[in-house]
């Protein structure tokens, strides 16, 4: 049986959710095809083993590997790197939800600084959509404290989430150094909002689904609205394996349903949002988009550091330190730009507490020394960590620079459980990454030092996070150097759009989730203008 819709959306996460909602509410008939299952809130338990350690949200490496060619390696290895989440809601279900906007200069790095690439539209065009996301899904924050923030048409709809009293120590330390800390904006409800409950501060935010619906995932905040129109179906366990196109026009998609049967769904407009790696993979497999598909893959560069405060030594602040609260909630963007570097970009420093997961913590404590500690030494160290001290951490986000050595192609040999060629990642890190990460880490450590801890330790340097994926279907003004036009529409298929992080010419020094959602709303408006609303049925 042939099905036909106005719009097909591939993927239900940060890119797919907003556009499905907006177009269904505009009167179009929308089918969302999501590869993963649909989980219920009841399944969002805080079980470290099942959820974090056993592939609850991401495919297992046996079923659906990626392969990875890391820097100078001559062979590839199977990896789970580059999966965010396969479920209705995608990565927004288990994200920690740090929702920073990009800076206006992130859109014009080439024209202003002569490096990287310009976006085909400015911050000012995306700004109203940033505001729409913040208002419609519920983002908690406060503006006016960060001198690096771009212009805002409206304040945040919700005040910042409640934070640990030690946040005032971070504020004081930053003031001493002439820096400007601000509340980390969160896609978490600090108050009941639009019929959803507020955060209960369970301490198991990142990596886990939210059992009360306070995390502003597309599953909680947007897809129900889309479905409530009566014009949108979210079909889970549907693996799209080919976009069918003829004569420069997408006709629809072939997908495997939950029973493994191949089906076809047709549409006037197809919107792809499977994450920058998987969308590139699908376009490559469908032979669409041209030679630049998969190029300019960008992740995010991170470094970390931590400070330890021993209760016995910190008499004056012992009561503050002993307080249990999941959120420290402070970020610093004074080093978002680093004019001393050839690419003058730094990034964001975000202060918080280590994750509460005990097994992860135990392994980390074991591996603090080499060879790793075990036995009574480890048990003692764990008790000391949990009961005799407080640890504060920071992580930094810096631009991953697009470069010829970092891209996605199809693996010539490895297949997934459907027999399809998997995405092969090639990763190369320009020298900028280590420099920017080193500088941001040093600044973060200075801020922690100024809080008078008992110990300060640098952590990882120049790590790459596989959760933040950008760049592989670059949007631009010229088809010679881009895959998508300024509307995020393929140059060589004028009814096919890509709205996950693939479109981003630069990644910026912040997680890209909010930007992806805002652009998805923007592209929805462009599609509405192009195809018209409220088609009579």
């Amino acid at each position, binding site marked *: 049986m042939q099905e036909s819709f106005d719009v097909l959306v591939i993927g239900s996460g940060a890119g797919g959710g907003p556009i499905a909602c907006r177009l269904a509410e505009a009167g179009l008939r929308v089918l969302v095809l999501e590869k993963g299952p649909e989980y219920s809130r009841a399944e969002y338990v805080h079980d*470290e083993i099942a959820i974090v350690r056993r592939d609850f949200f991401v495919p297992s490496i046996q079923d659906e*590997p990626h392969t990875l060619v890391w820097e100078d390696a001559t062979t590839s290895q199977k990896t789970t790197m580059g999966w965010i989440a396969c479920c209705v809601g995608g990565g927004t279900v288990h994200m920690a939800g740090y929702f920073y906007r990009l800076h206006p200069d992130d859109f014009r790095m080439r024209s202003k600084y002569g490096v990287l690439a310009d976006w085909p539209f400015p911050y000012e065009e995306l700004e109203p959509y940033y505001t729409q996301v913040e208002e419609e899904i519920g983002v908690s924050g406060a503006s006016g404290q960060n001198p690096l923030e771009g212009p805002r048409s409206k304040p945040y709809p919700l005040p910042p989430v409640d934070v640990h009293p030690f946040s005032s120590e971070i504020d004081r330390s930053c003031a001493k150094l002439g820096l400007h800390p601000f509340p980390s904006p969160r896609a978490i409800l600090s108050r009941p909002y639009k019929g959803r409950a507020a955060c209960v501060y369970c301490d198991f935010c990142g990596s886990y689904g939210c059992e009360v619906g306070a995390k502003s995932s597309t599953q909680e905040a947007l897809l129900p609205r889309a479905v409530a129109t009566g014009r949108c179906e979210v079909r889970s366990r549907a693996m799209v394996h080919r976009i069918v196109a003829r004569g420069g026009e997408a006709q629809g998609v072939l997908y495997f349903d939950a029973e493994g049967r191949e089906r076809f769904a047709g549409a006037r407009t197809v919107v792809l949002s499977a994450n920058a790696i998987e969308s590139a993979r699908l376009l490559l497999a469908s032979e669409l988009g041209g030679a630049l598909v998969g190029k300019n893959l960008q992740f995010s560069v991170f470094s970390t550091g931590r400070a330890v405060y021993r209760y016995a030594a910190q008499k004056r602040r012992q009561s503050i330190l002993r307080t249990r609260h999941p959120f420290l909630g402070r970020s610093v963007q004074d080093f978002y730009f680093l004019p001393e570097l050839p690419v003058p970009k730094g990034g964001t420093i975000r202060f918080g507490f280590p994750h509460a997961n005990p*097994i992860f913590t135990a392994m980390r404590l074991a591996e603090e020394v080499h060879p790793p500690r075990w*036995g009574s030494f480890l048990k003692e160290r764990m*008790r000391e960590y949990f009961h005799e001290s407080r640890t504060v951490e920071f992580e930094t986000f810096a631009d991953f620079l697009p470069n010829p050595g970092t891209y996605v192609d199809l693996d010539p040999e490895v297949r997934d459980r459907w027999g399809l060629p998997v995405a092969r990642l090639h990763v190369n890190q320009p020298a900028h990454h280590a420099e920017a990460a080193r500088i941001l880490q040093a600044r973060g450590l200075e801020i922690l030092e100024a809080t008078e801890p008992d110990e300060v330790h640098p952590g990882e340097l120049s790590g790459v996070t596989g959760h933040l994926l950008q760049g592989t279907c670059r949007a631009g003004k010229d088809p010679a150097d881009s895959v998508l036009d300024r509307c995020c529409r393929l140059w060589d298929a004028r009814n096919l759009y890509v709205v996950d992080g693939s479109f981003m010419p630069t990644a910026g020094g912040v997680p890209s989730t909010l930007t992806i959602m805002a652009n998805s709303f923007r592209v929805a408006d462009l599609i509405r203008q192009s195809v018209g609303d409220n088609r009579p049925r």
Partner: protein
Amino acid sequence: MGFPLTRRSFLNFFLGAAAFVVSACTAPVRRLFGPIPQDSRAILEAATWRLVPSDEHPGAREAHVIGYIDKALSLPFYALAKPACWSHRRELERGAKLLESVALRDWGSPFVALASSQQDAVLGYVQGQDLEFFHTLLVLSLEGFLGDPVHGGNRGQAGWQAIGYVPGQPRPGSCGHPAKSHR
């Protein structure tokens, strides 16, 4: 994506540990999972009792860590934090044999018959000889000690109590649905 460092370090561990990753195993998976083989079991159980000892607080013995390991290895496609995950059962068998041979060589007794301090000495030596096995056993022991009891270890929450840890709610089973893989 911000914290958790859990996932990011978790993933970064792959890349850092790329040098140690066993090349893709070509043996059929079905032969490689199932409970711990009997002749290795007593040795591995004794080893877990040393990796997480009982002192003034419970240890792997009270928490029944070996029960967790049995159950985990019986899952088809059990996945630890590394790609070649179907090699764990083989690693453990290999490691058990190594523990036994070192125990006999250095102390003239089977591993299970040694005093605790002697077992610790053997384990310390084996940690240097077979990094992969030791790491696997340590991770499995900590999972069995600190994971939710539905997975077969942390019996009576002994592990959580030992470190004074308050588990996250909701726990699996508390809402009628043990968390399960999407597979």
